[in-house]
């Protein structure tokens, strides 16, 4: 593959980095006053990138034509699917930010630039077919994320979240790198294809160690149990628009990356990692459900909910089949909509002065004075709980279906049981909003951009979403086929 062809495959990445650099210069000259304009430009850039990657997904691109830079980068249908979700989530994080930060005079022109670079890093992650690309993408994303978590630097909780995320993230990167160096040592190559070829037959103890350490590092990034401890603190402390971003885009990127590593690089050694993934899936589902019960802060509750959801996604990975991979992608798409909806609804909870309201007790009786908002939040909660008429049910259904087809009936059964536990705390929020004495705290008006985003997310997870199942399923099947052909 010649150089020009490689460059044309990374065109979205080139556009993102050029736009990031240009907007950084604009930010430097025009100052923080231009942050709204820069945010709008960044959303336009993300939309343009989405149009650039969409054709590869629609045509189901796969095979050697999608490989750039001698096997380091893969722009196939799978990568395109994940990138579309990432761009959408990044766009949402850009749209909700100005209204939130401007109230505390903390909207800075660097925010959209950092989001763009984080999105660029995530694009590299989902396209990685080499350990080096994997690591560079991951670090680019993480480094931008650490700064974003501490973006409200005068706020103690935000600074704490940034520091905590940085220290634990650096530790996870170290574990991941250790695993990568072991894998390289025992296979002699950094490309996923080469690792797969070198690991045919029985896997050596050293390579197994490498695989386990890499999985541990990646579980940190997707916040799967037992590497989830940072999630509630970081989600609670980070500014809410940044939390919206953390709960969506990096999750997609890290899950897609884990799929590439397990199903492609270690795809010939399913038995070696399957039990680990099964354990992480079950532990995440159960810890996520139980941990959320005692929470009084709605952001912490949604953090546990995201741990819980990652568990359901990993059930699809444990199946290690194309159906499982396709189910994971469908679940991810629905999960993004639910998370964006949930966090935007939280952003819209404000008191009379416009200060954010985060306590669950403070939204008591919300249905009395903010009817539409309460209805949307209730819909998000029902959908997260997987109650049938809403679209959240469909994601859980396809994942369990894939697990049962792969013969993992006990796993699916425990998952379903745990989702009943999870339903308890989702319903508790609904109960507080509809049946408790009104606290009359969250009475503030909200921004039209927030309302529009919440409306889109709510429409997607409403029963109308089922009109999309055939189309979404077909796209996810194409993406999963590309992933398994690469493997």
């Amino acid at each position, binding site marked *: 593959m010649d150089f020009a062809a*490689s460059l044309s495959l*990374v065109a979205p990445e080139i556009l993102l*980095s050029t736009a*990031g*650099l240009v907007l*950084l210069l604009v930010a430097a000259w025009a100052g923080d006053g231009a942050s709204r304009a820069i945010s709008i430009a960044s959303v336009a850039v993300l939309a343009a990138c989405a149009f650039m990657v969409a054709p590869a997904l629609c045509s189901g691109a796969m095979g050697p034509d999608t490989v*750039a*830079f*001698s096997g*380091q*980068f893969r722009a196939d249908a799978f990568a395109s699917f994940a990138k579309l979700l990432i761009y959408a989530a990044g766009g949402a994080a850009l749209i909700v930010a100005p209204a939130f930060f401007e109230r505390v005079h903390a909207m*800075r022109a*660097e925010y959209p*630039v*950092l989001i763009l*670079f984080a999105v*660029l*890093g995530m694009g*590299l992650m989902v396209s990685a077919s080499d350990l*080096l*690309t994997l690591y*560079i*993408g991951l*670090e*680019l994303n993480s*480094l*931008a994320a*650490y*700064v974003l978590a*501490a*973006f409200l*630097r005068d706020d103690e909780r935000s600074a704490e979240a*940034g520091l905590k995320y940085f220290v634990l993230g650096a530790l996870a990167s170290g574990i991941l790198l250790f695993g990568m160096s072991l894998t*390289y*040592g*025992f*296979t*002699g*190559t950094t*490309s996923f294809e*080469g690792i797969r070829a*070198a690991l045919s037959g029985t896997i*050596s103890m*050293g390579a197994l160690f490498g695989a386990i350490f890499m999985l541990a590092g990646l579980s940190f990034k997707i916040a799967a149990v037992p590497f989830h401890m940072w999630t509630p603190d970081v989600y609670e402390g980070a500014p809410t628009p940044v939390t919206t971003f953390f709960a969506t885009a990096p999750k997609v990127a890290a899950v897609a990356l884990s799929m590439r590593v397990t199903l492609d690089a270690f795809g010939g050694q399913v038995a070696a990692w399957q039990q680990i993934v099964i354990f992480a899936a079950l532990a995440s589902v159960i810890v996520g459900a139980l941990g959320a019960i005692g929470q009084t802060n709605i952001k912490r509750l949604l953090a546990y909910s995201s741990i819980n959801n990652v568990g359901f996604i990993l059930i699809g990975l444990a199946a290690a089949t194309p159906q499982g991979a396709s189910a994971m992608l469908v679940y991810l798409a629905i999960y993004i909509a639910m998370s964006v909806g949930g966090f935007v609804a939280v952003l819209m909870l404000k008191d009379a002065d416009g200060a954010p309201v985060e306590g669950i007790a403070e939204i008591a009786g919300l249905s009395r004075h903010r009817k539409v908002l309460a209805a949307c939040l209730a819909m998000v909660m029902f959908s997260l709980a997987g109650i049938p008429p809403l679209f959240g049910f469909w994601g859980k259904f396809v994942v369990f279906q894939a697990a049962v087809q792969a013969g993992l009936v006990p796993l699916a059964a425990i998952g379903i049981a745990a989702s009943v536990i999870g339903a308890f705390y989702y319903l508790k929020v609904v109960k507080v909003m509809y049946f408790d004495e009104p606290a009359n705290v969250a009475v503030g008006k909200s921004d039209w951009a927030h309302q529009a985003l919440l409306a889109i997310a709510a429409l997607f997870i409403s029963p109308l979403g089922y009109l999309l199942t055939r189309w979404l399923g077909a796209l996810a099947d194409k993406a999963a086929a590309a992933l398994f052909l690469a493997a």
Partner: protein
Amino acid sequence: MIQVLAFYLFATLVIASAVFVIMSRNPVHSVLWLIVAFFNAAGLMVLVGAEFIAMLLVIVYVGAVAVLFLFVVMMLDIDFAELRAGFIRNFPLGIAIALVLVAELVLGIGAERAGALKLGTPDGTAAPLMDRSNIEAIGALLYSRYLFLFESAGIILLVAMIGAIVLTHRERSDTRRQNISKQVKRRPDEATINVKPEVGKGVQL
């Protein structure tokens, strides 16, 4: 022969200066000994034919990291005597960990020598170029095969820089900053005034 002599010279000096790093009372001296250790390690790298790593050691570690250490040591008020007390208390634990690590190294290398541990065979993408120095070989790989990743790594450094500025830079009102354009624009007639003070009275400005 001369190589063996050079090896023993550099190796002795690395170990000796490393010992001085942890033994010297003055932390600034420790950092200076660390610089000596880096230089001698660079010498060892030249001996094994890795001149690129030798240069990196000198440029990055001596030029940047050591100077950074020196700044930190001089700017921060750290009570090193207290730190040292902890060092002596935890000394047995440190020795135990070191022994474990040495045992792991011996076991690992022993297993590899005995054939119980099979490393992978390199796939050859990073094989050295014939008749070229390793600086040229690394350059040839970095700017052709790994160009894309090399450029992406540049973006990571840029993000790190943006992050440092976003988190620490702020306009301070309590300091007087130099405004060069204001200084340049100033005319002589604004800067000087003529007064004729009366005898016995001061000047009112």
